[in-house]
């Protein structure tokens, strides 16, 4: 045995090595941390956003000291990769303190943001302590569409934020949720992103039911785009990637009768702005209060329970041969139905329409559907 030079290894390879050592070892390698539910925008599709000036919400949030303590405990328990999200993380004036501490403890960080609060100072911080990636939601490339989605005339600020990060050589991914307000602009967004930033653009039709109350009159499901229009959009955007065709070409049957098939309770966890730990950010029903105990106690108290949870009844998902491709999961079911196992019709329909369009069963060649955005 010799010291040897330290070989370079990527994160994925490291995780594979750890799991090869003991595939069932419950190590909280990957997590997500909602630093706040408050946001400077008011997107119609959002499932958590509270006003940035919501004093009650701010008073409930973990302070930087509490987050530092939880960070230390996550690291001690083996945490390595952590997503910071919100709300809008940059509404917190102590973001820098929180972020630097996490980096200095050796966490690999990813940041979700709307990009509108990325000042020169924030960009410098991120350049000094680079995250693995920053993902920015770009909801439109015209003022009207951006405002229709977000409720604010903030497109220019978002674009400036993106440019500040790219100018510093940071890794940025641009994306958007598809809503009824920006559906017709998607090809334009993709083309703008390609032309102005030289980046790809990803999109997500999944709009959750609201998780956090506090914005009266907001009903995200009402801005969902109908499944047939999502698949029409897929057909246009799929030209670039072929990802859906590859995806549906693979075996997509459910692997077993576990409730969670995503690593929840095995390697993943979530912490909300108030210190409540759960198996994922969408399932607030199995929880542990990190203000009352340690991260390790929380992890050990529910990890095994979550991981070994078996289905209690039969739904149509068990006989579905593409169920593993569906975005329905215990989180979606919880938000939509208040249960862990009920199928979510919206996701189910998108999945089956995509399988028809892109899977080996596809019988109909690409035909533009009514309402599909024009080719860019």
């Amino acid at each position, binding site marked *: 045995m*010799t*010291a040897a*030079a*330290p070989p*370079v*290894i990527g994160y994925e390879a*490291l995780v594979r090595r750890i799991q090869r*050592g003991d595939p069932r070892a419950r*190590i909280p390698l990957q997590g997500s941390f909602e630093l706040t539910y408050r946001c400077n925008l008011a997107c119609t599709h959002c499932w958590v956003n509270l006003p940035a000036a919501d004093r009650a919400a701010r008073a409930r949030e973990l302070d930087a000291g509490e987050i530092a303590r939880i960070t230390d405990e996550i690291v001690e328990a*083996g945490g390595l990769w952590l997503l910071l999200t919100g709300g809008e993380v940059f509404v917190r004036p102590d973001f820098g303190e929180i972020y630097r501490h996490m980096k200095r403890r050796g966490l690999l960080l990813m940041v979700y943001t709307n990009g509108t609060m990325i000042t020169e100072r924030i960009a410098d911080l991120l350049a000094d302590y680079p995250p693995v990636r920053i993902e920015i939601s770009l909801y439109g490339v015209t003022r009207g569409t951006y405002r229709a989605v977000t409720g604010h005339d903030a497109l220019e600020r978002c674009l400036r934020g993106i440019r500040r990060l790219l100018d510093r050589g940071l890794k940025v991914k641009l994306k958007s949720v598809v809503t009824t307000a920006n559906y017709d602009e998607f090809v334009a967004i993709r083309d703008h992103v390609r032309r102005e930033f030289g980046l790809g653009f990803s999109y997500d039709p999944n709009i959750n039911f609201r998780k956090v109350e506090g914005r009266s009159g907001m009903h995200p499901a009402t801005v969902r785009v109908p499944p047939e229009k999502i698949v029409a959009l897929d057909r246009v955007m799929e030209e670039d990637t072929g990802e859906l065709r590859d995806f549906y070409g693979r075996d997509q049957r459910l692997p077993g009768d576990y409730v969670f098939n995503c690593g929840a309770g095995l390697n993943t966890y979530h912490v909300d702005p108030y210190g409540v730990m759960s198996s994922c950010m969408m399932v607030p029903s199995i929880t542990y209060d990190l203000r009352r105990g340690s991260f390790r106690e929380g992890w050990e108290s529910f990890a095994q329970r979550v991981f070994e949870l078996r289905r209690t009844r039969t739904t149509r998902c068990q006989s579905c041969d593409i169920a593993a491709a569906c975005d329905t999961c215990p989180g979606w079911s919880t938000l939509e139905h208040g249960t862990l196992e009920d199928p979510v019709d919206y996701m189910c329909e998108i999945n089956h329409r995509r399988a028809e369009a892109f899977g080996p069963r596809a019988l109909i060649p690409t035909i533009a559907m009514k309402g599909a955005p024009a080719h860019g």
Partner: protein
Amino acid sequence: MTSGASRAGRDRAYVRDPDFVFRRIADEVVLLPVRRNMGDLESIYTLNDVGARVWELIDGHRTLADLRDAVVAEFDVTPERAEADVEVFLARLLDIGALRAAGAP
């Protein structure tokens, strides 16, 4: 490989750069760069048992000879092999910026 450790000789001591974080996760021991210009942020450096022990022993005072002796005392290896390996290891750490020679700015 350029051997900064070799150039420095056996009597030079080394200081760990605080912008590299040493972590044990399950049975893996890794070095993670946390600041800009400190290597590829998607890269993680893995250490074996000997490398991890050497990293822990680097304290700004121990020299290459001290580190070699510690490795010989704790692992089944000849002094010659231990010195050669520790030297390569230190050189690589210097290359990636995880170490600097004690007294250097």
